[in-house]
């Protein structure tokens, strides 16, 4: 076991079961209390979010017989942002017989996360990964097949084994539809009540327990209370704090941020993942950034110019004047280095003036050699839909001109703190999927988010949540007309009126863009103390400005998209300040968190395990105030932390 001097907060109980790593999950399931089938109807469970994590959990808990209420802000549960995932989902099936195993997936995930995740959680994730594929195949998810009818796999994002299952370039869509269909079946059977176009705007606590939520009906504006024995938040990630990200426009932090304000700790908020292969920005009007699947790096070669301010077209630049910088710097992994490494390398090239394209704001991802080697037909089969998408967005044809790519905010490893049962420090409040912090440490490996979302939803919560419910057998659900709910409802109504009454000069999007710029420049791919301090101050000032000068028109009693955005941006601003605080506090570089002060002589991330091998769980202290830090010390019994090397 590695020894650290870190004193964890004894109040922060991770509840990791005792015993050997490989036996923890089975042992824990056996020792967790059960709820008898005839009693399950009496338990109300609220699940916010219908992405992979939320839809899978709602369907499964519904199947088990609990009375579930499910919420999403889109017009249909099927449209949760999981639907946009392209590349694939990992599982330790070892169908390719290339040396994969549960232990290797566990090991790769711990290492990929730069030794900032819990071993026990990650091992469980690797264990259930195989069941996920079985479950999805049984639901009819049309995974890619070999000619003989067996499932096909590919290698993805830095893995040296082929463990990624996929459904063309639409893996997320197909997994999401599988979960949505299972959920739809429960809706028809009446075990799940579905609330589309409803947004959660507060968490309600009674005697320190989570007992329900306040929601706004986005069509009628009605604000109502829902009570339950347990609340699950599966509300996705918060990359949109950067304004421009690969997230959908509606992705937000509101549900978990409001829970944070009610006492739930926010863990590792500064761990954000910048994805290396996105289409660079083309103008100020840009509303989002589009991801080009990581799988493209399997055959594409990344290069930049060797001359600053290169203005020739790609085809006119001879090989001798191209810098294949990933191949040069990382000969072993070359174009397949992990995301954080690839992103930083690209940023360095652009910062030094070697960027390509009209705005010099990207690098090339070139298929010329792949087309020569494999032929156009094979390349078309593998990437045809991605090439079409690229051509459609940029007007360039990637078969003849290399793609231009640049890193963009993509995934957030941070999220609400949860224990091994996925319960937050607030009893009765569970958090699943991208919204929790649990499994990816400081960096997530490609194709592992879909795995985690479905692991949490299909297998972990349905085993752990009943243990918490069992303690409440005989306790009636909280009264939704009780004072706790009435006060919370009133606060939400007051907030709506406040937004509509400010009548300032700047639109909500203007504030969102300003926030995004501050975050991207100071708390993005590379961070330093001076920038983070300044950013925090700027954000505090931006918050003041927002609450005195935002302009939200219309009424609270109709569909009002500016009003929806106003609430989300208000929360992003507060989150931004916390991210800067966390990034400033972590005086080391690890995974997606790169502090310029902490790097090796050749520019690689320099961790400090002695002082920072902990989870930073932040406790809210009031708007504009610094949050309080609670540490959960991380112990590595099986994988000894070492410097990640992809050379």
């Amino acid at each position: 076991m590695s020894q650290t001097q870190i004193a964890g907060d004894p109040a922060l109980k991770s509840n990791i079961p005792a015993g050997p790593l490989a036996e923890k999950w089975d042992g824990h399931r056996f020792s967790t209390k059960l709820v008898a089938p005839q009693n399950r109807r009496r338990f109300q469970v609220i699940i916010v979010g219908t992405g992979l994590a939320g839809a899978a959990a709602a369907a499964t808990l519904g199947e088990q017989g609990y009375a579930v209420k499910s919420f999403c802000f889109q017009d249909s549960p099927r449209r949760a942002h999981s639907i946009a995932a392209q590349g694939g989902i990992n599982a330790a099936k070892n169908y390719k017989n290339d040396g994969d195993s549960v232990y290797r997936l566990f090991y790769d995930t711990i290492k990929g996360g730069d030794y900032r995740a819990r071993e026990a959680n990650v091992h469980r994730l690797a264990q259930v990964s195989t069941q996920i594929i079985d479950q999805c195949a049984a639901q009819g998810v049309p995974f890619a097949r070999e000619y003989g009818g067996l499932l096909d796999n590919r290698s993805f994002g830095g893995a040296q084994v082929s463990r990624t299952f996929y459904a063309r370039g639409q893996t997320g869509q197909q997994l999401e539809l599988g979960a949505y269909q299972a959920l739809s079946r429960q809706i028809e059977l009446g075990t799940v009540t579905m609330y589309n176009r409803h947004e959660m705007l507060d968490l309600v606590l009674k005697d320190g327990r989570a007992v329900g939520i306040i929601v706004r009906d986005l069509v009628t504006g009605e604000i109502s209370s829902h009570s339950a024995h347990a609340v699950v938040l599966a509300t996705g990630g918060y990359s949109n704090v950067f304004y421009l990200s690969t997230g959908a426009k509606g992705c937000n932090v509101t549900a978990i941020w409001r829970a944070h304000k009610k006492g739930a700790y926010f863990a590792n908020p500064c761990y954000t993942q910048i994805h290396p292969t996105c289409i660079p920005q083309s103008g100020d009007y840009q509303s989002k950034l589009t991801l080009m699947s990581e799988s493209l790096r399997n055959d594409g070669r990344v290069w930049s110019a060797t001359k600053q301010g290169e203005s020739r077209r790609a085809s006119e630049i001879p090989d001798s004047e191209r810098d294949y910088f990933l191949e040069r710097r990382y000969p072993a992994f070359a174009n397949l280095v992990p995301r954080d490494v690839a992103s930083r390398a690209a940023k360095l090239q652009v910062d030094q003036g070697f960027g390509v394209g009209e705005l010099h704001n990207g690098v090339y991802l070139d298929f010329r050699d792949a087309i020569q080697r494999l032929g156009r037909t094979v390349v078309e089969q593998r990437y045809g839909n991605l090439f079409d998408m690229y051509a459609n967005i940029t007007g360039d044809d990637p078969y003849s001109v290399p793609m231009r790519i640049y890193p963009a905010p993509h995934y957030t490893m941070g999220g609400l703190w949860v224990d091994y049962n996925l319960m937050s420090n607030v009893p009765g409040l569970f958090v699943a999927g991208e919204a929790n912090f649990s499994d990816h440490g400081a960096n997530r490996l490609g194709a592992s988010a879909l795995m985690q979302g479905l692991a949490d939803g299909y297998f972990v919560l349905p085993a752990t949540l009943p243990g918490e419910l069992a303690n409440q057998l005989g306790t009636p659900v909280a009264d939704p007309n009780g004072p706790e709910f009435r006060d919370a409802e009133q606060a939400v109504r007051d907030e709506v009126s406040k937004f509509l009454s400010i009548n300032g000069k700047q639109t909500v999007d203007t504030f969102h863009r300003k926030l995004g710029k501050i975050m991207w420049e100071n708390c993005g791919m590379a961070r330093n103390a001076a920038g983070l301090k300044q950013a925090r101050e700027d954000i505090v000032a931006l918050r003041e400005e927002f609450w005195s000068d935002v302009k939200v028109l219309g009424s609270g009693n109709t569909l009002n998209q500016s009003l929806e955005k106003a609430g989300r941006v208000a929360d992003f601003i507060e989150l931004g300040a916390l991210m800067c605080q966390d990034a400033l506090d972590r005086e080391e570089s690890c995974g997606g968190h790169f502090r310029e002060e902490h790097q090796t002589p050749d520019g690689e991330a320099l961790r400090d395990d002695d002082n920072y091998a902990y989870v930073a769980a932040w406790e809210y202290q009031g708007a504009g105030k610094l949050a309080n830090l609670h540490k959960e010390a991380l112990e590595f019994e099986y994988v000894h932390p070492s410097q990640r090397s992809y050379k």
Partner: protein
Amino acid sequence: MSMNLTLKVWRQAGATAAGDFETYQVPGVNEDMSFLEMLDVVNEQLIGDGREPIAFDHDCREGICGSCGVVINGRPHGPLQGVTTCQLHMRNYRDGDTIVVEPWRAAAFPVIRDLVVDRSAFDRIIQAGGYITAPTGGARDANLTLIPKAVADVAMDAAACIGCGACVAACPNSAANLFTGAKITALNVLPQGQPERWARVAAMVDRMEDQFGSCTNYTECEAVCPAGISVNVIAKMNRDYLKSRFKDRRSLIRQADVADEA
């Protein structure tokens, strides 16, 4: 290249309010903007002028979630084949163009506000039987069921539907046969889909007919589908529906026999 456009947009304050077109002059449109980014720019201007912005559904802006969708110059999702509204880019327009923007028009998709409609009728079709009953936990190893690549490909082609509703909007009868046929095909061709094959098609078609118009083979739906779903799925659905009347009865009788013996 920047253009000046004239936009005629359907504005409707609420479900029961009367709607009408409003005209906006939009200067300085960049050809690299997406159609929705152009609407964002219009909305920022409107708010600046103290007028409420145009409501429209959107989320991923990558052509996959199916949230977006408006009728552009009479055609759902605009002029391009296989492209959603969010993926339509302004380089497809010329300086001086007039663009008319309307919501999906179908009785089953009532307008909520401006360009936003209620498509929950689609969810109800899926709830009727658009799934394979496979409660979590009991699945056997995925490779025990061999699925020929060709079959998996047919399922995937059909499963690519994004549920946007353009097919209904394009159909003179407001029929939902392409949407329903796509889901039925995706599930009914797979080995895992066989046990519920006949019950599925019967329930889904009945639910569809309760809510939508009848298909008379205009095939306008296929022409506007951004996911490239072929009208073959409708033929497949119709064949299975016909057979279900016979198969379903037979399987019901079998179930009754088993129940008697038990």
